[in-house]
């Protein structure tokens, strides 16, 4: 059952489909005209905090954010 489907260029370069899709979506959003562009960019802003755990204890959380810290 060897799969013979041709691998797309981005997968052979190590990119996953989600990364590819997000890059395409960001590029398309950049090419929008003005009022729509700022709406789209503000819609896609994310703000989250990631906490890694080791030995059952949380380590220091890192905050990833697109909005300016105030």
């Amino acid at each position: 059952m060897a799969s013979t489907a041709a691998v797309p260029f981005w997968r052979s370069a190590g990119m996953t489909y989600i990364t590819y899709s997000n890059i395409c979506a960001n590029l398309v959003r950049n090419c929008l005209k003005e009022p729509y562009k700022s709406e789209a960019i503000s819609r896609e802003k994310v703000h989250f905090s990631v906490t890694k755990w080791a030995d059952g204890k949380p380590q220091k959380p890192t905050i990833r954010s697109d909005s300016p810290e105030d």
Partner: protein
Amino acid sequence: MFRQVAHRLLSRSTTNHSACAASTIRRPYSTEVSADASSGDSAFVEAWKKVAPNIDPPKTPIQFMEPRPPTPSTLPSKLTVNFVLPYAAELSKAQVDMVIVPATTGQMGILPGHVPTIAELKPGLLSVHEGNDVKKYFISSGFAFVHSNSYADILAAEAIPLDRIDPAQVQKGLSEFTQKLNSASTDLDKAEAQVGVDVHSALNSALTG
């Protein structure tokens, strides 16, 4: 462990020939399962009535679900399209004549009665034809599912009507990424630059074509 998986995968395709029934039970396709579960599981309802005849049996989740629209026996005249984005439903159960989607294998036209298909989409033009109107959108990437009951689900990460595209940005992006492609060193950089070139040239041809 992996030998078992391979054996099961192989035996799935040769349904009735093998002797051991357990590994070849074929699960029904979703279009074959009867859609109407609104009366609930009859065995459960009977058992409930024996124990608590005066109380209505509780509803199970499947009774709250709308059944899948059945596959009509004659060819339907219209295609029902659900065109959705992560943040909005652009078209929800819209009845149209034809949809042309930018699949990775080329522009694909979907008419009522199209064979069930799953198509991965590349950045390109999606056009929805209804009578004499054609609505065009530029899609960044996504998937199109066509079901046997002439329903088409089109999922895209980003879809913009053509009049919202800024041509100056497109040209700028195209030249920037072509330059990045020439100067890229690692495989990943080359792939990203190639993606940029693909998206911007698709935008370009959508604007001019």
